[in-house]
């Protein structure tokens, strides 16, 4: 077990989680493109080949359907594959394997076969990446029954949730926010945080609830800080896992605050934020003083680096939404006009 304390980056925590899983369970096997000698383009698998040998950590041909399908076969043989998709958009070639096999194999066989695979997907933008390197693709997976969708936002969660994902009997799409890879926190590893399906209140507040996950969590927290100047005390909920979903924590918060803004980095239309908004108004209708608003990426292909700041939900856009939560009991002119 890697015992680490002090400032740790998310990249390091993920590496430690892989390392500790490999050490703890000989069925664990890590592979993908460039994960061996290079240690991954983000160095998440750094040193694993050297320390565990090329039967436990290895490179594959460049073929994502192949990687995921290979993992299915390995899982059938009793192993626990952890695969890396190099970037979000480069998981799309594996879409059929993920939706038609990974997600469904347990169901198709009434539980006689299971597919405990972890598919690690570095996702989202904010890193000045060129096209195809910054998609937020969680909605595709969250909409697919049979997959668990895990979205850590903190260093401790990155470690703890990845360990849990690898130990989980079900397939997990594990979305890693690239722009937070090298953000560091004071943590002690190994860390055990709340499990799948438990959201966490990252910042308590009374006036409104910001519900968010993954890459958008630090932005929401920043917005909540900034909102103090406007006299708003905002609660920030980090969902941590999208599937399973923690209705309880979200519902309790919104019933208390009466106002809610959902924040995601992905393009908004038919995204996970839509699901959250729909759920919240279903369950908290009588507590709401204003509609549940959404702040999301624009409904455009992820833009080039120079304009990504326009696309990404930033502090100002979040505060604008908070301002529209009918604090003075006036209906929102945005929609009234329509």
């Amino acid at each position, binding site marked *: 077990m890697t015992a680490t304390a002090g400032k740790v980056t998310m990249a390091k925590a993920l590496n430690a989680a892989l390392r500790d899983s490999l050490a703890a369970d000989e069925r664990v096997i890590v592979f993908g493109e460039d994960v061996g000698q290079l240690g991954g383009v983000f160095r998440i698998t750094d040193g694993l080949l050297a320390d565990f040998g090329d039967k436990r950590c290895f490179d594959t041909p460049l*073929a994502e359907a192949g990687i995921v*399908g290979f993992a*299915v*076969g*390995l899982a059938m043989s009793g192993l626990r*594959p952890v695969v890396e998709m190099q970037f979000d958009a480069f998981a799309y070639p594996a879409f059929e394997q993920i939706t038609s096999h990974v997600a469904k194999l347990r169901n198709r*066989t009434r539980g006689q076969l299971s597919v405990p695979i972890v598919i690690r997907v570095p996702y989202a933008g904010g890193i000045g990446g060129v096209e195809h390197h910054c998609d937020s693709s969680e909605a595709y997976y969250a909409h697919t029954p049979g997959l668990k969708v895990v979205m850590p936002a903190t260093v401790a969660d990155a470690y703890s949730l990845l360990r849990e994902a690898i130990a989980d009997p079900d397939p997990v799409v594990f979305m890693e926010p690239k722009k937070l890879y090298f953000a560091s926190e004071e943590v002690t590893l190994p860390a055990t945080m709340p499990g799948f399906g438990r959201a966490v209140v990252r910042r308590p507040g009374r006036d409104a609830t910001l519900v968010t996950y993954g890459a958008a969590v630090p932005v929401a927290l920043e917005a909540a800080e900034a909102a103090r100047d406007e006299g708003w005390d905002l609660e920030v909920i980090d969902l941590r896992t999208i599937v399973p979903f923690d209705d*309880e924590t979200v519902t309790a918060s919104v019933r208390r605050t009466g106002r809610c803004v959902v924040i995601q980095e992905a393009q908004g239309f038919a995204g996970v934020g839509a699901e959250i908004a729909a759920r919240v108004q279903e369950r908290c209708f009588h507590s709401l003083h204003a509609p549940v608003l959404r702040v999301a990426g624009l409904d455009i292909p992820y833009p080039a680096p120079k304009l990504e700041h326009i696309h990404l939900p930033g502090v100002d856009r979040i505060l604008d939404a908070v301002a529209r939560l009918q604090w003075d009991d006036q209906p929102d002119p945005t929609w009234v006009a329509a």
Partner: protein
Amino acid sequence: MTTTPQAIRRASPRTNRAAARPEPAAPLLPSPEPVRLLDEAGRRVSPECAVRDYPEPPTETLRELYRRMVIGRRFDVQATALTKQGRLAVYPSSRGQEACQVSGVMAVRPTDWVFPTYRESVALVSRGIDPVEVLTLLRGDWHCGYDPAAWRTAPQCTPLATQTVHAAGLAYGEAHQGRDTVALVFIGDGATSEGDFHEGVNFAAVFRAPVVFFVQNNRYAISVPLSRQTAAPTLAYKGVGYGIASEQVDGNDPVAVLAVLANAVEHARSGHGPFLVEAHTYRLEPHTNADDASRYRSMDEVETWLGRDPIARLETYLRGAGALDDAAVDAVAAEAEAYAADLRTRMNADPVVDPLSLFDHVYAQPTPQLLEQRAQVRAELAAAEEGEA
């Protein structure tokens, strides 16, 4: 019908393996013509005239092959009949392809893994799986009716070519854990055009995984003829592009198919990497009962292939070799009839599937969201019952 898993396992052609030991380094290209050990009239092709020599499987094995082919065809005809009676939603027949269906499963051990497509029902019953369990999918009760882990047989795969990659992974995983399992993948000619075929064969080749890719080239993918799938001399030529051994065989010559597959399996098991086998065959029935084959092929063509019947061919050969007589043929026919009768009876039952089981195997444990939906469905069912009461 008495084909128990045990009976079929017992008959696995272990005896054959030593004889079939291949040259370590297989040639770069497949035989320029399909390998054939019996001619169309069921006579043994003399080894000197054979395009490539393969040891003939033992006679006992060939008798068992004959038996399973006859039972398999009877099963297939029965299944087609069940669609007409509305007992099956759909059935993709493999009539005419019995040499491939049966040799495929006879070439491997019970401990090996088989990766079938939707067309491999005959292969599955030949492996010993209860035919009712095989037909669960097609009756519409659930997706996979048999226990894939117990039978070491993946669920029948519909998304084309996706199973090739699973087989590569399975075979590598088994080897990784020190087991000498071989994975045998069935795949159609049309499915070789899918990207997953490429990725599956390539992964197996790069990782030297013991996989036999067994292409049943039945000349059509539903209506699409082979000429729309490839411009290659034939599909077996794809092997060289992956650096793996390959062979083509007359898919209606049961002796050749079994011999070539036995060699391929042995090649894979003994560490020489994957093997690609293409069998030239023909499906006599439409793609499924829902298909209208008259739209895309002539009866003449079908007639021609009816004349190449693999069962008749083997029967002639075995009779000629004194390994089969009227009594034995009749016994097998009777066994096949009994098998079909038993199946008919058992398919008359209409098992009830518990609606709430829908929520059982989405995840190992249902999520809170699924529990909510389960409660809702339970309430609906209760209300409906009340309404009826």
